[in-house]
């Protein structure tokens, strides 16, 4: 598999505090990679390192196969765009002027493409309005436009939907899906708003206390979080025969417990098995959300 970014046991210390602790991540090309973790888990610290804003205490990362210790890393970084925490905008400039400034930084000879970029992020009608008068959602979208100015194939977004209203969240989500699906841009997005992330991400990295606890694809996560009915009984044989006869997928957890996936007709099952002398100990329905999956993965409250 082709990876845009990998990190190998990245560590970052702030005096005695370990913000990143052997952080190892693999971001596939063309994915929307959701970095999931609580506040203070290390997501933003990792993003600052890969953007070159800070240096790791130990370990390294590779961007497009180039090691972070190499002098060529800065050139590779020109292939990425990022919005780290708050959008980096000149608040006294209009949206267009911000992009013109970015174009000059990139060394572009003319301003071709700026209007299209503004249209892509839905800011084509802002005119002479200065960025300081934008709503938070507009600033976020302008920040993304600035990040896209260099035609990157990898963009990094640190909590882009924080503080946005529902309309703003939908606008950003639709924009990101468009960038990934139509333009093939790999996106790394960090968030602790799991519900929103579940609508976007194709891959997940769960972060806790400065390290990656688990990396999983969206498909694997969906399988792990499937709805199921848990049945407990003294002897499962009759139940298993019933499930086989009705082509219902299941997993035997133990001698006394099975998890049944798919659509189970409870009435028919209970009546049918009761006639065979089957005795249920318990029946319960479960569905694991991304939130409960994450909490089960990293545990409950923080132990500070």
């Amino acid at each position, binding site marked *: 598999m082709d990876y845009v970014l990998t990190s190998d046991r990245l560590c970052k210390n*702030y005096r005695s505090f370990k913000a990143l602790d052997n952080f190892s991540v693999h971001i596939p090309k063309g994915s929307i990679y959701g970095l999931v973790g609580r506040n203070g888990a290390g997501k933003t610290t990792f993003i*600052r390192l890969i*953007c*070159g*804003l*800070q*240096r790791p205490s130990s370990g390294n990362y590779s961007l497009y196969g180039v090691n972070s210790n190499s002098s060529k890393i*800065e*050139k*590779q*970084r*020109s292939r*990425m*765009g*990022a919005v*780290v*925490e*708050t*959008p*980096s*905008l*000149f*608040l*006294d*400039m209009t949206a267009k*002027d911000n992009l*013109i*400034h*970015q174009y*000059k*930084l*990139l*060394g572009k000879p003319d301003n071709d493409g700026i209007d299209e970029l503004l249209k892509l992020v839905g800011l084509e009608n802002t005119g002479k309005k200065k960025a300081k008068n934008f709503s938070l959602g507009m600033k976020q979208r302008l920040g993304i436009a*600035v990040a896209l100015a*260099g035609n990157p194939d990898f963009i990094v977004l640190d909590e882009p939907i924080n503080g946005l209203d529902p309309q703003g969240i939908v606008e950003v989500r639709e924009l990101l899906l468009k960038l990934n699906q139509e333009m093939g841009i790999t996106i790394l997005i960090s968030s602790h708003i799991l519900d929103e992330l579940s609508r976007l991400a194709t891959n997940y990295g769960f972060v806790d206390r400065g390290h990656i606890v688990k990396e999983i694809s969206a498909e694997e996560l969906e399988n792990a979080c499937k709805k199921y009915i848990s049945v407990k009984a003294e002897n499962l044989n009759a139940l298993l025969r019933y499930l086989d006869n009705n082509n219902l997928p299941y997993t035997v957890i133990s001698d006394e417990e099975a998890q049944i996936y798919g659509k189970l007709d409870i009435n028919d099952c209970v009546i049918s098995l009761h006639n065979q002398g089957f005795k249920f100990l318990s029946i319960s329905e479960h569905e694991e959300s991304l939130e409960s999956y994450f909490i089960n993965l990293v545990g409950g409250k923080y132990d500070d």
Partner: protein
Amino acid sequence: MMIKLFRSEYGRLVKSKIFWVSVIGCTGFGICLSLYMWWMNSCFSYVSPADENVFIFSTFGGILSAVFTSLFVGKLYSDGTMRNQIIMGHSRIKIYLCEYLVSLLANVMFFVFYVIGNISVAYPLHKYFGNTPKEMLMKSLLTIAIIAVYTAIFVFIAMLNRNKAVVAIICLLSAFGLLFYSMIIESALRQPKIYEDEYYYDTEKDAIVKEEAFPNPNYVDGKKREVYEFLNDFLPAGQSFQVGGNYDEPTVNDIFFLYDSCIVLITTLGGVIVYKRKDLK
């Protein structure tokens, strides 16, 4: 890569309100100062040279540089746009040097516009220059060198601290501190060694009395005088008093350029080294 950075920062400078306010302010101040001096001359029937106030800029230019540089460079931190420069692959050395060059360009332009405002009014009124062309050139170059020193110091402060307000305060305090310290040194060096014979009218004796010459107890001599003279020549504010002071004896010394180069080199090198290792948020 540096030319891209420079072009974008120059574009930011041209769009900066504080830059244009400073340009207009310097031009206006030059004009007002010329008119004031002409009016003073007419009160005392004296005609001073047209270039009498040109190099006074070097004294207050440090304060203007403190305000402008701290706000202009500080904006990169406050708006977070320094992150864009780093994320897109510009090296920290080039970012630092670019900020220094653009700030220096701006501060030199303030001097140029001040001179244009000052001379354009002063020359038609006074009709002669006191300095020879060579002296004008030397003093102009030294004024620019002094501006370069102030800019280097304030860029050093601004690039290493992300709090814009704190940077502005430190830069202003530094500018005023240097100015007042140099004023004290210069004043001490200008003390006469001996107070000459003095004659005065004693009303009680109803006669003119002679007070004999006596040594000035405040006169600085020996090693202390050497140190004071070195500091007066080394510090930018001390140089600015000498270049803008219109003293009869020649005061501009070639060694000033060496001192200025050393300060610019040390502050810029030190700033680049610290900035390169700085964790940015």
